[in-house]
């Protein structure tokens, strides 16, 4: 076994490391869950129905938050009885295919609204868009949001913002776009015919080539259409044409990748807490791997072996790096699972990568600093005292300096940016914020190149100095030069 793997094993598989990590992961999951519930509560409606009205029958498919048919959703149809002039409700549950069906008594004038009962118990009332009195027509019922802004956001990996249309003989609900260029569309049709489809960017003068579909009868169809590569953020129209030359267009904007500001903030808040407190483990690791064995002479024996000091240092450094990597990965996996499973949203991979790198680099820069302190002090208790002091200073220095500046009557906002040059995480979390179009919590990066340079220095400098001290590099050079 390579020694650095062993150093990693004994660094990572420690009661202290595992305990703190488990606490963070649990806190992360709990926090993600709470945020998720908050985010969920902010989304008024996560289910849609696409359906048709034929005669006195309403048939529909309930579409869930990921754009899939959703079973077990309670659907309430409220209609007015023209004879007794009273509102009456009909209730059905969507079956395992998300399918739901109502038979409307002829004495009812028309259904006025549908009520979807979501899993969290919250009711959402959807006004019918379809002019029911037409007796034949499609219905497509989206969240209440569409009433106001005609948009609907699916919290799926490939979210589509869609303009709605209803009451036409043909209606399409565009659910998902996949990286292989497929578009999932639920099509409600009341006009039996041969269909063709095509897709074109909105505003494009060229009309796209049409691809034939099968003959579609009255009903609801889940179609996977091959539309090729779509540009994120661009508006498109999906065109259906029948053999009788009728055309139906549906507009949507591909929002891939999309993540809400709240979701990023929740992840970053959790990660910031991790970055603030998890370095305690690295303070301890530097103690266990360098300060303590040095103090008790355990390194002496290693020095007597056919091993260079540089090899010992690098092995222990890499052990810590792998611990940082594994801990950060676990935290991110927990955060990812929390957000995707509990909250039902997926963060874009690149955003996650930047956040991950930010946390990982922050941890290793702190580890490098602790290694430097461990090599500087011969007494392990002196190391502990100084490293705790340094940790407190670095963690709370911004607050402290701000407090002093404020006390002295300075405009602290003016200096805030400069104080952020102390951790590699700032730069990468800033990128993550920017990528999702969110505002970073503090005004960073007046000078990005300087910020990157300081981030690199924070990682490289303490580690390099620790290496030179541990290996007594200059002393050895001097001895060799003096021809000993």
């Amino acid at each position: 076994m390579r020694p650095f793997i062993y150093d990693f094993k004994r660094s990572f598989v420690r009661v202290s490391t595992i305990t703190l990590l488990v606490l963070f992961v649990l806190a992360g999951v709990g926090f993600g869950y709470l945020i998720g519930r908050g985010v969920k509560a902010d989304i008024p409606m996560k289910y849609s129905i696409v359906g048709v009205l034929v005669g006195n029958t309403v048939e529909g498919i309930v579409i869930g938050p990921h754009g899939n048919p959703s079973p077990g959703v309670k659907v309430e149809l409220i209609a007015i009885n023209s004879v007794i002039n009273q509102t009456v409700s009909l209730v059905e549950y969507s079956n395992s295919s998300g399918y739901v069906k109502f038979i409307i008594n002829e004495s009812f004038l028309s259904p006025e609204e549908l009520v979807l009962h979501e899993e969290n118990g919250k009711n959402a009332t959807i006004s019918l868009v379809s002019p029911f009195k037409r007796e034949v027509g499609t219905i497509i019922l989206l969240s209440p949001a569409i009433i106001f802004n005609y948009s609907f956001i699916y919290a799926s990996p490939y979210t589509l913002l869609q303009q709605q249309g209803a009451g036409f003989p043909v209606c399409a609900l565009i659910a998902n776009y996949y990286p292989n260029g497929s578009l999932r569309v639920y099509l409600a049709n009341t006009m039996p015919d041969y269909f063709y489809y095509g897709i074109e960017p909105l505003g494009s003068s060229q009309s796209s080539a049409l691809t034939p579909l099968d003959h579609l009868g009255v009903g609801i169809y889940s179609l996977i259409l091959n539309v090729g590569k779509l540009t994120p953020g661009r508006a498109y129209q999906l065109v259906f044409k029948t053999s009788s030359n009728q055309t139906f267009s549906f507009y949507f904007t591909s929002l891939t990748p999309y993540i809400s500001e709240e979701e990023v903030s929740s992840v970053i808040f959790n990660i910031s807490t991790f970055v603030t407190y998890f370095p305690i483990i690295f303070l301890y690791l530097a103690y266990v791997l360098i300060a303590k064995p040095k103090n008790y002479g355990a390194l002496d024996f290693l020095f007597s072996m056919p091993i260079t000091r540089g090899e010992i240092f690098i092995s222990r450094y890499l052990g810590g790096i792998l611990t940082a990597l594994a801990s950060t990965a676990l935290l991110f996996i927990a955060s990812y699972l929390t957000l995707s499973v509990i909250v039902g949203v997926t963060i874009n991979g690149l955003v996650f990568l930047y956040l991950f790198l930010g946390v990982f680099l922050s941890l290793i820069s702190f580890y490098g600093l602790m290694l430097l302190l461990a090599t500087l002090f011969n007494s392990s208790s002196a190391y502990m005292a100084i490293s705790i002091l340094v940790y407190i200073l670095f963690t709370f220095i911004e607050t402290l300096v701000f407090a002093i500046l404020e006390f002295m009557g300075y405009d602290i906002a003016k200096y805030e940016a400069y104080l952020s040059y102390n951790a590699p995480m700032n730069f990468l979390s800033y990128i993550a914020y920017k990528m999702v179009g969110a505002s970073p919590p503090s005004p960073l990066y007046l000078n990005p190149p300087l910020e990157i340079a300081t981030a690199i220095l924070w990682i490289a400098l303490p580690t390099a100095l620790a290496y030179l001290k541990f290996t007594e590099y200059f002393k050895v050079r001097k001895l060799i030069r003096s021809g000993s």
Partner: protein
Amino acid sequence: MIRIEHISKSYGNIKAIDDVTFDVHNGEITAFVGLNGAGKTTTIKVSAGVIYPDRGDVLIDGYSIIKDKKIASKSVVWVPELPSFEMDMRAMDYFIYIAGYLGYPTSEAKELARELLSRVGLEGAERKRLKDYSQGMKKRFALALSMISDPQNFLFDEVLNGLDPEGIAFFRNFALELKKEGKAVLFSSHILSEVENLADRVVFIHKGRIVRVMRMDEVRNFVKPYLFLRVENPDSSLLEILSKYGRVEQSGNAFIIRDFNGDIGEVSYSISTRYKIVEIRMGYSSLEEVFFSIIGDRK
């Protein structure tokens, strides 16, 4: 062979060793003797590559412990008086860890560990944590670890301290075996008698400087005999007679003639007519006395 060349080392203002130079030859056990704090451990630590000297160098089979650290360290074993490892680890794990540095895969390292730990009498203790090892076990473990690279040179620093008789016998016999195999052994002690039946040569160190290097037979020759005499009726003329044979010390009716240069029979004959002899015998100074006599010259 270990060649220690003009090494000096200070800790702050305190000079631990000053221009220390001597050789440890193959097929020999070299005793390294000095009082506590004389500089033995510092010399050995420099020789083992544990600390760097301020000046000088140590050549292990011709390789510098500073410039060619890895090659030199492959040929030298260091067993300290109080070995310290990362004590939370199990012996087998620590062995595998160290062997990993030397390029051994885990399975081979395990096999080697069993072999070497068994050779030093630690079979069955492989899974124990190092903190549960006794001092003797730790020294044996250090020995086993160091033998991974099949070294030719051995540095034993006060290894007999704190050992039970079995442990002492083990290290003495082990050193003798190494000597037979033609290996170079440096055996440090602050008690000369501890190494007198073991060593071929003795290097005396005092206050950080080498004061003398002697072959063991020279050391023994250095030991001058004395005559012990007890009579019932001593008087002043007896002192006069005895002073012809050496330096006389009297304590009651007992006399010690130092640097005795006569013959016990002759003394006995010359005084037996006038004095009633209770006890007469030859004695030899202890090696400790020799040691103090040597360092006394340097005080």
